[in-house]
Structure formats: C-alpha cells, structure tokens
C-alpha cells in the first residue's frame, strides 16, 4: 500500500516535470501564434481583486475591462484594430507585479501597449524596467511625483495628478477654509499614511508647505494593511490636530474612519486623497463617516453618457465584468478615464504611425502628445467627468486639477470648485527630484530637439 502511494507520487513528480516542459514551450508558441494574427492591440491589465486592497482594486479593474469590451462591441476597436487584454493578479505586491509584467510584456502582435500598474510600489519597480523594454507606464493620479518631468522620465506618465499635486490642493483648500493660507500658522496638520511608497509620497510637499506657512506637520504611519489603527488614533487624540489628512488604500480607509468615530475625532476635519474617497471606504461605516471629505479627480459624480454605452453594449448583453450597480461609482469612473486615455493615446499614435497595431514605443509618442479639449471629451461620452487635458514632452501630467467631495452619509457630494495645484511650488521640487534621479541613474535629460522624435 505504501509502495503504491509512493509510486503514485513519483508519477505526479514526472507529470510535473512534463508540465514544466510544456510550460516552457507554452509562452513561446503563444508568441509565435500571435505574430501571425493581424490587427490586434494587446493591453495587459495588472489588477488586484484579492487581498486587503481588493475591494478598491476590483471596481477599477472592472471599469478597464468594461471600457475595452464596449469599444470592441460598439466601434470594433480603435479604428478597426481590435483590442485584446489579459488580466494578471498582483495582490498589490511588488514582486508579483514584476512577474506579471514580465509574463505579459511580450504578448500580442506588437507586445504590450502600455501598463497601468494600479500601485505606486509596482510603479517604482517597473520604472527601472520600462525604458529597457520600451513600454510606457500610465500612472494616473499616483506613481512617482517627480515623473511629471518628461525630460528625465521618458516612459512614465502620471496623468492628471500626482501625490504632490494632491497634497498641494488639500493645503490650498484648508487655507481657503481658514480664510487665507497665512491663517494656517500655528495649526497642527497630521498625516495618517499607509506605510508604503504610496503613503510616503506626499511628505516632501507637505514639509515644504509647512515651512512656508508655519503649520506643524505631524506624520503618523500605519503599517500595511492598516487594519490595526488604534494607536495611531490614540496619538491623534493626544495631539489634537486641527486637520487630519488620510492617505490610505483598501481596508485602511474604512478602518481609519471607524477608529475616528470610536475616538470621537470629527470626521469633517478629515481630508483624504483621491484614493481614500470612494464608496468601499465609507459604505460600511455609513452614517459614522458623515462629513468626511476627500479629493476627487473627476469633476462629476455618477453617470455620464459613456455609462449608457457601457450598460447598453456590455452589461445588457451579460458581458459585464462586475455587478451593474458598480457602474458609475468613483473608482469605476476613474478606471474608465484611465482606459479611455490609454485608448486615445493609441488613437493619437495611429495618426502618426498608421491604423495598425502599434508598439509601446509608438504609443508612448501618442501619450506624450495627447490633446483632448472639452469638445472631444464630450464626444467620447466623458462630458462633465473630465476637464481638458494636454500632455507634452516636458509635461507628462497634462492637468493638475481636483475637487473636494464630502460624504453625506449615503453618497458623495461635491463641496468645492476645482482647484489647480500651485506650479510655483511644485516646479522647483519636481526639477530637483528628477535631477537627483537622473544623476543616480546616469540618465541624460532629453532636449527639446529629442522631443520631436
């Protein structure tokens, strides 16, 4: 009996060996097949649907898929080039993100078009690899703040905002609340942040502003994943800051709001970044989160014309990636915008290189030369959701605006007009940081002449 079991195990081991050899040839044959297929543009989708950040990553991922499906169904792709995609689960972990990237970067007739890593940590790792593999990274509203400088970071695109712009806008809003930025003098502003590259990004800007306006800046890190926050909020209770900025992600946000309620910190003095201001963060706190404020990159909340198209072409045909009532939520809309900008970049690149499947290098030019005015945005169905955006060789961000929204207990409501981040403060910081990066990595910044290429 025992011998037979062991023989069976040997069989398993041999089968595993056979599987490994199949695996080795697998990706190769998939690639060979791909090269013969014609008009397809491949998008790898790095997502996380599991783990502590799953609740926030899932609507984002669903939106990206839904938009692609809708384009294929409604328009037949981008000017006749069909869009294909494959999802890869990263779990917000850097090493899995790198593995997914390596696995998918060569797929499709022309390789991966571009990557939206959905994580600042993975962005840091891929920033090293993307220039070598010539695949652009779109990091809308996250990523390295200094990658706004396109002359050094040729392959990174922090479209529509970075954490420095976010922190800047919040301080501007607080200044407005207090009457003027000078009235911030002597106040205490605490940052409760996710202890990861994501959470640490805004610190340099907040320190700069704290020097400028003389407010006391307190840093309180929360260890990932951020479920245990009692000590952080006890410290808040001890220090009694005037405002608390929340830079959390995933389960950390709702935990923070619950602890704020438990320690009696007024939620209307809390301001979250645009990744801490979505439905998963506040829904299960409900009334307890009433008054909580956050930034929003979008300029409207809820449905727009593009949602009608998605419901019509995707969900009504039973092809919806996620539940139908998720369509129109904050993170879903942001995912839509990201995928739309990706697709429009391909379209722009097609204007220069032809209406065929394009390589990452060609699409990079497209992202760098995006010029979407309000008319075009309305035409795409995003009217109201977005303001115009236009990128350039030196400016990989395109626009720096955001609004403040507040949770009223059952839905988000805008409580401010659009702010624009202050270029005067940001420009020198970005220049200094990107110069430091260029020196470390021995990169020669591009000249305006290079930009024409």
């Amino acid at each position, binding site marked *: 009996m025992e011998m037979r*079991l*062991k023989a069976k*195990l*040997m069989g398993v*081991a041999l089968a*595993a060996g056979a*599987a*490994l050899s199949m*695996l*080795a040839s*697998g*990706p*190769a044959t998939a*690639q060979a097949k791909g090269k013969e297929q014609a008009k397809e543009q491949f998008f790898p989708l790095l*997502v996380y*649907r*599991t783990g502590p950040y*799953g609740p926030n990553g*899932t609507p984002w991922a669903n939106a990206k898929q839904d938009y692609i499906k809708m384009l294929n169904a409604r328009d037949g792709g981008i000017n006749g080039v069909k869009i294909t995609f494959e*999802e*890869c*689960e990263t*779990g917000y*972990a*850097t*090493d899995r993100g*790198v*593995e997914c990237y*390596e*696995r998918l970067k*060569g797929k499709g007739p022309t390789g991966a078009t571009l990557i939206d890593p959905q994580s*600042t*940590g993975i962005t*840091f*790792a891929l*920033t*090293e*690899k993307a220039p*070598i593999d010539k695949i652009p990274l779109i990091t809308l509203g996250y990523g*390295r703040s200094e990658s706004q400088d396109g002359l050094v970071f040729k392959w990174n695109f922090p479209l529509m905002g970075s954490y420095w712009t976010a922190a800047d806008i919040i301080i501007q809003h607080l200044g407005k609340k207090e009457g003027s930025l000078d009235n911030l003098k002597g106040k205490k502003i605490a940052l409760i942040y996710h*202890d*990861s*590259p994501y959470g*640490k*990004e805004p*610190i*340099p800007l907040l320190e700069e502003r704290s020097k400028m306006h003389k407010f006391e800046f307190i840093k309180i890190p929360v260890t*990932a994943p951020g479920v245990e926050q009692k000590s952080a909020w006890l410290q808040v209770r001890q220090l009694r800051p005037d405002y608390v900025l929340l830079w959390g992600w995933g389960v950390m946000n709702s935990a923070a709001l619950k602890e704020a309620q438990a320690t009696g910190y007024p939620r209307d003095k809390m301001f979250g970044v645009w990744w801490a201001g979505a439905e998963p963060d506040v829904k299960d706190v409900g009334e307890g989160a009433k008054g909580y404020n956050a930034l929003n990159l979008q300029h409207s909340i809820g449905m727009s014309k593009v949602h009608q198209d998605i419901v019509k072409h995707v969900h009504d045909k039973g092809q919806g990636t996620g539940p139908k009532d998720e369509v129109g939520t904050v993170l879903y809309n942001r995912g839509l915008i990201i995928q739309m900008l990706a697709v429009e970049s391909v379209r722009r690149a097609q204007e220069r290189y032809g209406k065929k499947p394009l390589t990452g290098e060609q699409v990079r030019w497209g992202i760098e030369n995006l010029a979407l005015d309000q008319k075009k945005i309305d035409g795409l169905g995003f009217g109201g959701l977005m303001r115009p955006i236009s990128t350039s060789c030196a400016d990989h961000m395109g626009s720096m605006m955001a609004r403040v929204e507040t949770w009223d207990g059952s839905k988000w409501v805008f409580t401010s007009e659009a702010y624009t981040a202050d270029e005067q403060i940001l420009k020198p910081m970005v220049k200094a940081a990107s110069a430091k990066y260029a020196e*470390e*990595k*021995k990169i020669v910044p591009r000249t305006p002449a290079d930009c024409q290429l």
Partner: protein
Amino acid sequence: MFYRENGQFKATYRADEQMLPILQDRVFMFAVVAFAFLAMPFLATDYLFLSILIPFLILTLAAIGLNLLVGYCGQISIGHAAFMGVGAYAAYNLVLRLPQLNFLVVLVLAGLIAAAVGMLFGIPSLRIKGLYLAVATLAAQFFIDWMFARVKWFTNYASSGSVSTVPIELFGWKVQSPSDKYLFLLAVLVVFTLVAKNLVRGHLGRAWMATRDMDVAAEVIGIRPVYAKLTAFGVSSFYCGMAGALYGFVYLGSWEPAAFNLTLSLKLLFMIIIGGMGSILGAYFGAAFITVLPILLNQIPLWLGLSLSTATASHLESMIFGALIVAFLILEPHGLAKLWSIGKEKLRLWPFPH
C-alpha cells in the same frame, strides 16, 4: 541495469570519499551542469529566464541556507526573509557608499553582515528550542522589517522608502540581459552549492546533525552547542544574505522593505519542507516546485479553456497550495528529495522488479 556500481572500485580513500562515487551519477551531474551553462542560454525564452529561472536560482540559494539551519541543525526559523533583507540593504549601501568595490566582494561582504546579524538573533537558540525559537525568529523578522522602514540611513533618506539599483558590472561585463543574469546567478549558485555540500560532509555538518538529533547527547560527547548552533545561524544567514542581495539587484531592481516580509519567510520554509529537509538537493526541488506552481496554476485554466476571474484563480491557488502542503506532509514527510532517492533505488534494480 545501467545504474550499478559493478566494477567501480576505489583505490584511494580520497576517491572513496568523493561526493559522487558512482560514475553514472558523475556523468549525469556533469551533463546537467553543462546543459544549464551551455545549452540553456540559447534554448530558453526571455520569459523563461525572467519569470522562472532567475527567481528559481535565487530562491534555491536562500533555501540552501535555510535548510542548513532547519534541516541539518534542527533549529526552526520563521524569520529568515529578514536576513535576506539585511543582505539586500547591506549590498545596496555598500554599492552606494563604496562604489569602487567589485560586486563579488560586495556580495560576500553583504553575506558576512547578514551572518553577523543572524548570529545575533540566533543567541536565543542557546536557551530555547522548537516553537519558542520560532517566536524568537519572528521577533527578528518584525524588528528588522521595522528597522529598514524607519531608520532612514539604510534607504539613503529616500522619502518613499524605496531603493533602486543600477545593473551589476563585473570586470567590464554588464550583467543586464536575461541570459547574462542567468549565467551569473548559475555560477554563484554552483559555487556555493559545492561549498554547502562540503560543509555538511565535514565536521561542522556532523556537529549540526548531532545537535539536531539529540542536543543533550551531542553536548555530552563534546560538541559545543554554542559553536554548533551559532555557526549554523551564521552560515545560513550568510547564504540568505547573499540570496537577498541577488534578489534585490538582479531580480527586482527596486524594492521596498515589504519585499522581505513574513510571506517570503514562510515561502522559504515551505520550499525546504516540500523539497526535503536535511538535503541540499531538496532545496533545489523545493525552490523549483514553489516557483513553478503559481505560474502553472495560473496557466492551467487557460489551457483547459476555462475562463476564471483572476480573483478566483488566486483563491484557488491558495487552496491548492495549502492542500498540497498537507498532502506532502502526510504522504511523504521527507519531501521530494526522498522521492528522488527512492527513484534512484528503483533504478538500480530496473528493469527487474526486485
């Protein structure tokens, strides 16, 4: 029929004490190594290098290190990824502050620093054993994690806490392309496997194994427990430190403190349990198994034509992983290495049944 020792007589003690006394073994091993060095760089795709072979080689090195401690010396450690982290950050700081050093020197120095830290955290093993020692190593894991996240000097005052490295350059050879990285790692691994194999065959290895089997009796016959246990911690941390430096420099390129967390420690432990504790070959098998399994689990639904959402695939992976661990522990507690040696035994009789 083929795998027999008939006619292979040894004339000197030296020949008798060879690592691979049977001729067929030597031929096989030579063939494998030759294939790995000469044929693989041309046959394998980039994807195979970057996603499977490179992490496999690095994790094998770390698994050998952990196996020396857990398998050969019997001290449980659930915090060994922390020592990998020590090696990685040490290498980063050495390259940053002493850029004129050759990378091989940096690698060895990083290993030595990790060894020193490992011996420090191994001191509790002199008083406690088993599960209690596991808690002590957990303390090491969390403390070292915290240290690298908080003490800014280690990350060169980077505001994001993340560090990134430049490609390695050795004597003018830039280790950048996937096959270059593969060859470099293979060379390092082969050299240090030989070192480990000889260590465990020597008097240090015997001291470790005696401590593992019955430490009181070992002390009685004169093996100093301090010497045995601390050298075990030191050598295993040396290997893990080097593996960590390679992990950071060659595989990731840029990492944050969370890259060397508890999950990686448990992964290493699973590798040696599935591969076989107390066996160098077991480290290879375990690392191969753990590296390939998630990728296999991801690809099988695609081959079968099923479309699973990535969330389900991820959960399924967790479930299959857990079930496999339990299955291995029940069916073959000595791991894949034991299966391999059973196979060799069967091969001696083949094609005869008995």
